C-alpha cells in the first residue's frame, strides 16, 4: 500500500513553471525519472572518448525514426512502384533527397557507432558481472538492428535489394527437413516478390522498431540499475564518500551532458559531410547496383552485402566442403582440450562430448552449405556468451598482461579482414585467408576461458585514473 495522495504546497509567489512541475510530479514521477536515468545518475568520472557511442547510438535511433516517418509518407511498398517511388523521393519531393540520404547514411553510421560501442565493452570488460544483462540486451538490440537493416534494404527494390534478400532468405532453406518450407513461409512466395516486399515493409517500419525501442529501454534501465563500468574496470560504487555517492563518481548532468554534446557536434560534422559530399561512400553505404531496378532474371556480376554484414558473410562463404575437415578437426581438438585443461564437472564434459559427437556426425553427412549457415549464425551468437567466456581476474585491458593486447589486435585484424574479404569477389587465395580468419575469430572466443585467465596481471588501483583538466 502506498501513502495517501498529497498535493505539494508551494508558496503563492513561486514561479508558474515550478508549480506546474510540482503538479505533474504529484501525478507522474517526471523529476524522479529524469534524476534516476540521467540528472542525478552518478557515473564514474574517468570516462574517455569511447564512452560517447552509447548516446550517439540513441541520437541515430531518433534520427532514423524521424527520417523514416517522412520517407514512409512518399514510399510505395509495391513491387511495381517501389523503385520509382524512391527515385521520386530523390528527385521530386522537396528535401526528399536529404531525408533519404540521412536515412541511408544513418544506417551505416548506426553500425559504425554500435561496433565502436561494442569494442569499448570488449576493451574494458563492460559485459562482466554484474553487467551480463546489459550485454545481453545490447546483443539483442544488435540482432534487431541487423534485422532492421536487412528488411529495410529490400525496400528500394534495386538489384542488390532483390538478390540480397534472395540469398539471405535462402540461408534458412539450408536447415534440414523444415528449411525449404521455412524460407517459403518467410518469402510468402516461391520467389522474392511483391508479397515479400510488403511483409518486409511491415517488419521494417513497425515490428522491429517496436522491439528495438523496448530493448534499448531495457538496456538503459539495466545500466542505470547496476551503474556504468569505466576504463579502469573498477567498481566505483564500492568506494563511497561522505555525500553518499562514490568518491570517483559525478552526476551525468551537467558533466556528461556537455561531454556528449561535444561528441554529438563532432558526429554531426562527419555525418553531414557524408550526406552532402559522399552519400554513396564509394559504393559502401549505397551500392551502385542498387540504382538498377530489381531484375529476377539476372544477378549483378558483383554481389556483396552492405559493409556491416560482410565479416559474418565471409564466414559463410569460407565454409567450403574441404574446410569442413578443418572444422571437424577443430571440434575434436576442442573436446580433447576441454577434457585435459578444463575444471568443468565430469557431467558437463560428457554433455559437451555428446554434443560434439552429434556435430561431427552431422558434419560427415550434411552438406557444407548447412554448416556455412550454422557457422554464420554462430559467429554472431557467440558474442552473447562473452560474459561467461571471459575469466580474466581484471575487467579492463589496462591491467591485463601486455600479450593480451596482441590477442585483441590479432582478433581485430581478423575481423576487419573478414569484413574486407566479404566485399570482394571470392578467389582461391581470398578464400584461404577468409578461412584462416574464421579460425582466428572462433578461437578467440572458444579459447577465451583459458587465455583470458593466464599471464601476469597488473595491480588494479583503488581509485580511477583521472587527471583534472
Amino acid at each position: 500500500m502506498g501513502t495517501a495522495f498529497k498535493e505539494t504546497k508551494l508558496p503563492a509567489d513561486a514561479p508558474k513553471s515550478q508549480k506546474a512541475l510540482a503538479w505533474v510530479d504529484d501525478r507522474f514521477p517526471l523529476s524522479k525519472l529524469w534524476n534516476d536515468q540521467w540528472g542525478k545518475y552518478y557515473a564514474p568520472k574517468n570516462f574517455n572518448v569511447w564512452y560517447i557511442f552509447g548516446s550517439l547510438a540513441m541520437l541515430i535511433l531518433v534520427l532514423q525514426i524521424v527520417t523514416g516517418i517522412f520517407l514512409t509518407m512518399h514510399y510505395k511498398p509495391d513491387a511495381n512502384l517501389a523503385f520509382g517511388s524512391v527515385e521520386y523521393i530523390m528527385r521530386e519531393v522537396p528535401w526528399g533527397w536529404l531525408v533519404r540520404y540521412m536515412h541511408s547514411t544513418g544506417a551505416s553510421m548506426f553500425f559504425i557507432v554500435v561496433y565502436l560501442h561494442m569494442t569499448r565493452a570488449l576493451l574494458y570488460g563492460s559485459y562482466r558481472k554484474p553487467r551480463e544483462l546489459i550485454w545481453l540486451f545490447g546483443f539483442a538490440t544488435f540482432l534487431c538492428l541487423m534485422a532492421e537493416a536487412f528488411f529495410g534494404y529490400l525496400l528500394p527494390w534495386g538489384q542488390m535489394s532483390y538478390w540480397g534478400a534472395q540469398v539471405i532468405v535462402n540461408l534458412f532453406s539450408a536447415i534440414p527437413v523444415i528449411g525449404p518450407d521455412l524460407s517459403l513461409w518467410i518469402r510468402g512466395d516461391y520467389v522474392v516478390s511483391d508479397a515479400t516486399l510488403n511483409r518486409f515493409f511491415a517488419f521494417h517500419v513497425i515490428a522491429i522498431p517496436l522491439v528495438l525501442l523496448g530493448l534499448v529501454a531495457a538496456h538503459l534501465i539495466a545500466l542505470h540499475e547496476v551503474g556504468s563500468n569505466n576504463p579502469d574496470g573498477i567498481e566505483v560504487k564500492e568506494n563511497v564518500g561522505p555525500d553518499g555517492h562514490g568518491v570517483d563518481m559525478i552526476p551525468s548532468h551537467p558533466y556528461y551532458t556537455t561531454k556528449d554534446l561535444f561528441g554529438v557536434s563532432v558526429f554531426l560534422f562527419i555525418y553531414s559531410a557524408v550526406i552532402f559530399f559522399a552519400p554513396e561512400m564509394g559504393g559502401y553505404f549505397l551500392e551502385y547496383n542498387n540504382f538498377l531496378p530489381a531484375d529476377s532474371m539476372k544477378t549483378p556480376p558483383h554481389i556483396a552485402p552492405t559493409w556491416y554484414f560482410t565479416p559474418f558473410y565471409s564466414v559463410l562463404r569460407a565454409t567450403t566442403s574441404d574446410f569442413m575437415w578443418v572444422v571437424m578437426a577443430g571440434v575434436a581438438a576442442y573436446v580433447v582440450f576441454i577434457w585435459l585443461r578444463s575444471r568443468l564437472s565430469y557431467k558437463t564434459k560428457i554433455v559437451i562430448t555428446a554434443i560434439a559427437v552429434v556435430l561431427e556426425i552431422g558434419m560427415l553427412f550434411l552438406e557444407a552449405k548447412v554448416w556455412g549457415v550454422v557457422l554464420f549464425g554462430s559467429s554472431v551468437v557467440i558474442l552473447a556468451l562473452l560474459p561467461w567466456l571471459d575469466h580474466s581476474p581484471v575487467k579492463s585491458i589496462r591491467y591485463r598482461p601486455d600479450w593480451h593486447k596482441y590477442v585483441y589486435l590479432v582478433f581485430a585484424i581478423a575481423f576487419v579482414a573478414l569484413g574486407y574479404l566479404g566485399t570482394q569477389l571470392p578467389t582461391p587465395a581470398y578464400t584461404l585467408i577468409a578461412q584462416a580468419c574464421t579460425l582466428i575469430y572462433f578461437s578467440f572466443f572458444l579459447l577465451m576461458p583459458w587465455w583470458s585467465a593466464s599471464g601476469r596481471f597488473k595491480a588494479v588501483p583503488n581509485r580511477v585514473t583521472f587527471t583534472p583538466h
Partner: protein
Amino acid sequence: MKVVEWRGKPVWILRRTPEMLASLPKNDNLVADPKSEKPYQMDTPDYAKNETRSRAEHKDVLVAVGICSHLGCSPSSRFAEGPQPNLPDDWHGGFLCPCHGSTFDLAGRVFKNKPAPANLDVPPYMYLSDSRIIIGKDEKGEA
C-alpha cells in the same frame, strides 16, 4: 543463349557448339555429380539424365533453371576458355555464380568442392517443332 521467365525464375536455353559439347567429358572428373544421379529440388527428367543433360533430339540444346543450388543467385555466363579471374586455369567454359563463387560447366553440372551442393535443375520441357520449345510441360504432363 536465351533467358526466359518460368515460375518467376530465369530458364536458360543454350545452344552449345560442337566444341562446347566436346569439352563436357573433360569435366567428368571435376564435377560433383557427373551423371546427375543425386536427388534434386526438381526431379531431373529421365531424358536429361545424361552427360549433356539434354534431350536426344537436340543434344546441343541445354535447358536449365538458371538458379544456383546454393542460395539462389543466377550464375553468369563465362563461356570463354582458359585462365581468367575467379576461375581455374583449366576452364572449359561454363557459368560462375557471382554470390559465392560456385562454378558450373556447360551442362549445368556443379564443380566439386564449391558451396553449391547440386547441379542446376532441368525443368520438364519438350519440343513442339524443330524451333519451338515449351517449358514446364513434357510427354508426362504439365509440371
